């Protein structure tokens, strides 16, 4: 990749007292991409974002924007803007004055200011609300004000800290689509922080999965979903069946002596305890093909949820797999099992991942 990164974090570390919030994070974010930072609460997403924006100084490492080292520049000297988690709308200013705030600071002439604010309000669908006070707006509208206020400055990079977390589910879905459209339209690099894996997978071009201040994996949504780097990513993104057992010669032995073929890994000592993960939707219940890993289990539970049915199958003492089937043929469930039956399952070998155990 010869292109300079829009944002480059180079080994940044930040501690508060004795606790390390961000631990040696290195990331390259490409110009124009929609980049998500995904991880559970407290994993250091906000702290990373604050170091890009300039609200926090890293203890070590550097922050580069478009190739330029900005590690110790104050926020007002960086060509990035932020959409804050609380929106941080200026209550004493009208919607239009909120949006015009940054342009005014930069000395953009009045006419140009008015025109750009007008166009931005159209873009975020706040046309006609220019003179409203923030107090009179709904949560979704305040969120749009915060977005317009940041985007109108045409930053190189827009930082968004869980911008949709406070919205109700329906509005959140709608804003996910809209945000993505807006990003394509303006072509600005978005760095989008979220703890919602669905949101990260559906919206981002690439994402970083964070855990305990470290980056666990960087890749496209498909990369992290299909090829999770470790047990944490496999468990955090979507649902995975993780089976833990003893590894030897390409086979995993589960409690009770059940043995499964798993991808072999060089350098893994026989007798190591490892995990193997299979996604519920990758497990088949019928029409098996040649070369599949086949195993027998006892059906423990059937959970019908409209479009899909989830079966819980016990394949070894204390090891249950959940299996997801689409209800393509409605009658299928009725002729299927109710519980207690012995059934066969199978998956393609490449859908079973050997996870390096994280401490």
């Amino acid at each position, binding site marked *: 990749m010869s292109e300079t990164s829009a944002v480059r974090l180079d080994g940044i570390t930040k501690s508060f007292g004795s606790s390390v919030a961000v631990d040696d994070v290195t990331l390259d974010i490409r110009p124009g991409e929609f980049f998500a930072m995904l991880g559970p609460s407290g994993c250091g997403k906000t702290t990373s974002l604050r170091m890009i924006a300039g609200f926090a100084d890293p203890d070590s490492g550097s922050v580069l924007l478009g190739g330029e080292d900005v590690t110790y520049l104050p926020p007002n000297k960086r060509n990035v803007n*932020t959409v*804050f988690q609380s929106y941080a709308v200026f209550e004493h200013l009208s919607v239009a004055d909120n949006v015009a705030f940054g342009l005014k600071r930069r000395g953009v002439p009045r006419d140009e200011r008015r025109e750009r604010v007008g166009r931005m309000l159209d873009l975020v669908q706040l046309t006609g609300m220019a003179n409203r006070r923030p107090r009179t707006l709904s949560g979704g509208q305040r969120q749009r004000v915060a977005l317009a206020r940041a985007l109108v400055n045409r930053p190189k990079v827009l930082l968004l800290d869980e911008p949709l977390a406070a919205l109700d589910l329906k509005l959140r879905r709608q804003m996910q689509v809209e945000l993505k459209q807006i990003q394509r339209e303006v072509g600005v690099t978005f760095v989008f922080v979220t703890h919602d894996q669905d949101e990260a997978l559906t919206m981002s071009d690439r994402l970083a999965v964070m855990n305990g201040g470290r980056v666990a994996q960087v890749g496209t949504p498909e990369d992290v979903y299909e090829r999770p780097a470790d047990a944490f990513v496999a468990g955090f993104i979507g649902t995975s069946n993780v089976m833990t057992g003893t590894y030897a010669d390409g086979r995993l032995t589960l409690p009770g002596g059940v043995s499964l073929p798993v991808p072999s890994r060089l350098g893994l000592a026989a007798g190591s305890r490892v995990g193997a993960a299979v996604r519920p939707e990758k497990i088949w219940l019928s029409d098996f093909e040649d070369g599949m890993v086949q195993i027998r289990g006892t059906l423990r539970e059937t959970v019908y949820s409209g479009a899909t049915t989830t079966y819980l199958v016990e394949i070894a003492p204390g090891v249950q797999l959940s299996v997801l089937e689409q209800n393509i043929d409605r009658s299928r469930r009725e002729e299927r099992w109710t519980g207690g039956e012995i059934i066969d399952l199978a998956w393609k070998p490449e859908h079973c991942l050997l996870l390096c155990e994280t401490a």
Partner: protein
Amino acid sequence: MRRAFSRRRKPWFAIAVTVAFFGMLYLPIVVVALFSLNSQKSLTVFKGFSLRWYRAFFADHDLIGSLGFSLRISAVAMIGSIVLGVALALGIVRSRGKLGSAAGLVLLIPLITPEIVTGVASAMLFKGVGLPLSSGTVMLAEVTFSISYVTVILRSRVAALNPEVEEAAMDLGCSRFQAVRLVTLPALLPAILASAILIFAMVFDDFVLAYFTTGVTPQPLPVRIYSAIRFGVQPTINAVGTLMLIGSIALIGLALLVPRLFGRRESLSQLL
């Protein structure tokens, strides 16, 4: 039946105490206001309504001079204590260290110190550093002892501010100082105005501190009134007292109204 009956009896004792309390509190004020309208010089017999004591007050250059002086002291104390008190509130809330919380505690001392102690101490301090008592010393003292009120009122408002709002201003191109000026102070404006009015009213009718720290001439109005009644009460003083009362009530009313003018829910009682 008996119990139900006895429960319905009026609590005569409680009513009597309440009436006596409010009587002692407000009767003297009512009497002053009433006799300021007396057409005769008598302070015991009301003869009829007239505005002659108000006319006498406005014709008295001495008293008018004191009124002007008191207004000037109040204005200086208001502006000085707002500037310093708001800055102090911001500093105390923002500095998370020991210094900030220590300053927050020290701040409460002037609020609980008897004013007579404050007054005597101030007078001795001015004497000690060789500063002759004058209009300057009384203003200095009033500014100093008003800061605590402003800071105590503002501190909780500052603490309640969303820190991301100031950061948003910096994100949009402000320096730290510009962010405070353009975003933080406007957010605090209702509380600032309310405490400004409060300080003005408090300083205007302050007697004790003014008495110990003012020079010989001009005298602040409350001190002037005190010296006047030592030589017998003139009905003019009733007129002055009534005017001061009306002024104070108007200011307190204004202070209560300010937050509402900004369309905010919080009232002064919540601010305090």
